[in-house]
């Protein structure tokens, strides 16, 4: 096995991040060296993983890599293993893409901060942690990576420690994140005590037949632990604080990458380790937690006054979609869930970068203070709108493509099982999507449209580097939205099949090739061909525009003079000289909120912001999970 053999690529991908992190500690004082190192490691890692796509995704190969060549022998896998199947590679690609774009963005975004070398170190540590987690074939190594990424994320949350609330957010994250990590460690220990191995594949082979009290507790511990990483309800308040305080480029990682590690862990847990997804209660647990996260967090987002906190809650809401879809345990559902996980990384990354651009130029993300930036930052506005349309599920962007699959999967599941609960889930998913649209309309109105406050008169467009990063995400948003078949075929379909075939995963660790099932890719019942639609829209838009232009549509009268706005071009303000009055912020949809006022006031009282409460929630959630699993499993 030569050094350049593809089997080495996964470990290289991880090591590039860590190597970059350490080298930046050494040479990071120099700006150019720092940037070169960072870019090299993020680009290299991405390139390595992309090169694996043909083999693992379409070829169906499972790469098993033993550190130091200490391969499986004698019935026990002692060595440190990396096992890369389609699922791992799928998540690894998400990580690599998000880290790459975020890294490109960071160059200009962080230039005014202090301690930039430390930032890059932590940034790459976080990336490496997540990458290690998703590629690892070893439960204990997963825990190690969880620890690395948690502490890197805590440090990055508090990176701008002069900002209000940064340290508080980091502290909250530290406390509850540690509870989560501890749960994972405890779960790992309990499993090890039962079956005396830490290799994931081997665990997956041994546990499913031997579930008893202790393994149930381990299951609950691991589930709660990974839920903490994904910020699922009831751990959602942490995400809001962490995202609100962290730099935008870090938010991209926290929301696009870190939460995915939680989802990855849960998928590995329920589909591989315990292989319990054929059990209705476990399906119920996932779908329930997913739906509650989906709905609660979207309503929480509607009540937010801060751009980044709003995005944070949406992040969890979208993770709720993913978990719900995964919990459906059908090929279509899993494929849709993974698709949505990918899309979420892309569009949420784009939105966080847009929020970062706003913060970079205006110094605030307060929705009540911003407004009218579209005239000053047109490119950012367009990019934000693409992201907003994606997350809100507006065709033809990627959010719609995956959500549409999720609705269908949920409804089909409802019809298959005759369970009216899944019908409810479908409706919740559809309504949540509209609520998401509502809060992004709110952001558009409050930040990019509406009136420009005087204090932001001289705001400029963000530097090209940042726009480039955002454009990358935007292009991905459009591409993955327009080519759902391709995405399903190349990325999510194989990953979904990997999820449904734990046997291959288990066997691959022992070096046994189980032929890939040639099951058909999951098919949707409905019809949606975005390219055709786009073609039609394009033609009709072109035709209408042509007619309009022939009718002198563009002959508008505009304010030609510079400073002084004549009355004609002033806003109609009931005859008054228009003064600054921005309608926006958290109370924009009071017609909705009025009808839900009891719910909102309940939620408001519940989210006290006290870390003790949140720690208590974590403990209660753990207790509930243990009790539930003891009863049903």
């Amino acid at each position, binding site marked *: 096995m030569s050094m350049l053999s593809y089997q080495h690529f996964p470990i290289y991908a991880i090591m590039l991040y860590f190597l970059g992190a350490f080298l930046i500690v050494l040479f990071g004082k120099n700006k150019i060296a720092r940037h070169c190192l960072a870019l090299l490691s993020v680009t290299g890692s991405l390139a390595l993983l992309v090169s694996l796509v043909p083999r693992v995704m379409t070829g169906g190969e499972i790469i098993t890599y033993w550190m130091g060549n200490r391969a499986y022998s004698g019935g026990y896998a002692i060595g440190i293993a990396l096992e890369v199947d389609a699922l791992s590679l799928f998540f690894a690609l998400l990580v690599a893409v998000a880290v790459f774009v975020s890294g490109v963005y960071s160059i200009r975004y962080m230039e005014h901060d202090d301690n930039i070398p430390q930032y890059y170190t932590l940034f790459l540590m976080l990336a490496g942690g997540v990458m290690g987690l998703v590629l690892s074939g070893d439960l204990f190594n997963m825990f190690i990576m969880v620890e690395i990424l948690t502490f890197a994320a805590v440090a990055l949350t508090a990176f701008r420690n002069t900002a209000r609330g940064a340290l508080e957010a980091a502290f909250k994250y530290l406390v509850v994140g540690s509870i989560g990590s501890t749960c994972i460690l405890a779960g790992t220990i309990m499993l090890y005590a039962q079956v005396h191995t830490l290799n994931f594949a081997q665990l997956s082979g041994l546990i499913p037949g031997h579930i008893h009290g202790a393994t149930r507790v381990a299951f609950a511990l691991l589930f709660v632990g990974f839920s903490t990483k994904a910020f699922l309800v009831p751990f959602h308040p942490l995400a809001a604080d962490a995202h609100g305080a962290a730099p935008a480029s870090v938010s991209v990682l926290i929301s696009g990458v870190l939460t995915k590690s939680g989802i990855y862990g849960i998928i590995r847990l329920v589909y591989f380790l315990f292989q319990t997804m054929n059990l209705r209660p476990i399906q119920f647990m996932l779908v329930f937690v997913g739906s509650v996260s989906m709905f609660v967090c979207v309503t929480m987002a509607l009540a937010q006054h801060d751009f980044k906190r709003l995005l944070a809650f949406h992040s969890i809401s979208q993770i709720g979609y993913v978990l719900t879809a995964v919990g459906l345990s059908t090929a279509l559902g899993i494929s849709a869930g993974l698709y949505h996980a990918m899309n979420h990384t892309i569009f949420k990354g784009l939105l966080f970068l847009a929020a970062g651009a706003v913060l970079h130029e205006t110094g605030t993300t307060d929705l009540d203070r911003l*407004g*009218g930036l579209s*005239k000053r930052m*047109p490119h950012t506005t367009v990019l934000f709108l693409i992201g907003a349309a994606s997350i*809100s599920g*507006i065709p033809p962007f990627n959010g*719609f493509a995956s959500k*549409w699959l999720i609705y*269908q999967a949920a*409804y*089909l599941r409802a*019809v298959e099982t005759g369970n*009216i609960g899944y019908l409810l889930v*479908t*409706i919740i998913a*559809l*309504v949540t*999507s*509209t609520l998401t649209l*509502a809060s992004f*309309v709110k952001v*558009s*109105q409050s930040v990019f*449209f*509406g*009136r*420009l406050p005087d204090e932001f008169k001289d705001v400029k467009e963000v530097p090209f580097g940042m726009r480039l990063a955002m454009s990358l995400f935007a292009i991905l948003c459009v591409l993955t939205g327009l080519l759902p078949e391709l995405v399903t075929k190349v990325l999510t379909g194989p990953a979904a099949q990997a999820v449904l075939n734990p046997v291959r995963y288990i066997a691959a660790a022992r070096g046994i090739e189980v032929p890939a099932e040639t099951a058909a890719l999951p098919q949707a*019942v*409905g*019809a*949606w*061909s975005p390219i*055709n*639609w786009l073609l*039609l*829209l394009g*033609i*009709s*838009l072109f035709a*209408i525009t042509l007619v309009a232009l022939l009718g*002198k*549509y563009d*002959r*508008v*009268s*505009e*304010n030609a003079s510079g400073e002084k706005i004549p009355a*004609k*071009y002033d*806003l*109609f*303000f009931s005859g008054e000289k228009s003064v600054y009055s921005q*309608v926006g912020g958290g109370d*924009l*949809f*009071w*017609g*909705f909120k*009025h*009808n839900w006022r009891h719910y909102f006031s309940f939620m408001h009282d519940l989210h006290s912001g006290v870390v003790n409460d949140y720690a208590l929630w974590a403990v209660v959630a753990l207790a509930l999970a243990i009790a539930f699993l003891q009863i049903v499993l």
Partner: protein
Amino acid sequence: MFTPAFFTTALLYLGYILIFPGFLFCFVVGLLLCGIDRKAVARMQKRVGPPILQPFYDFFKLCGKETIVPAAASRTTFMLAPLVGLAALVVIQLFIPVFNFRVFRNLPEVADMIVILYLLLIPAVSVMLGGAATGSPYAGIGLSREMVTVLAVELPLVMVLLSVAKAVGNELGTGLVFSLSGVVDYQAAHGSLIGHVSMIPAALAMLLIIPGETGNHPFDAAEAETEICEGLLAEYSGAPLGIYKLSHAVKMLTLTSLFVALFLGGIGTGVEHLVAAIGLTGGVAAALSLILQVLILVLLCIVLTLVTISFVHAVTARLKIEQLFKYYWTVVTGLALISLVLAWYGF
């Protein structure tokens, strides 16, 4: 690739987009529906009312007016938003089958019901963004109300569509039918869905959804001209305003013909047999039956407009936005829910 056949097909589809059931059809029938609505409301209020062609006059007049772009507005969004909204609506119209006539007869279907549900958001979003781009505070309030209206209408509409999908799926034994063509095909073979017990509440709910989705009185809190100066359209003038008005009219056509496709799909499909019975064959028969089907569709759309939009307009006063939301999430959702449960248990 560039064979004569390709060009013929391309021309045919261009014709679909531009003439029927695309732009020209939408323009004429939409504005006609709007005119009939205005006339009918006037008659119900014991007035004479404007001429049926009044919306056409309004549209052409607006085309001749000056278009003022406020200094605070971002021009691109301001000018582009109406066009995108209209184009999206016209495209939706292509996806709604006219009884046996379908644009995508020989091609895979482009969009199913759920997609149409979301495509219907595009015009709403475009008007919201266009309005928001002006920076007017009235538009801000209008945007808030428009969005809440969309939220309010979306839940029952989702449930109506799901119950239709389930009901047709039940009948055909395939579980679910999301495709609109499938729904219409089923109705062509087995009679209109409105005849099913389970679909009657859904049809009622859909009737109540139509004025909400189009933003007609009494659900026009978003454009209340007496209190928030037309809301989102407060700063629009001239041709873009005309296009918004046209979009509103086309939306009436889209939703009523969606209703026809969902619940009355069986009414016009017998025409082909009728034409064949007269003894006509070939192109003439096809043309005649198409014309007849279109006429029936237009007629049904007019009737639906009268019932859902004009009549409701004439007998009610505008709802406040929170009342509107409550109304849709209780009464209309309740109706849709009954239908969904009935369809679920196979009635």
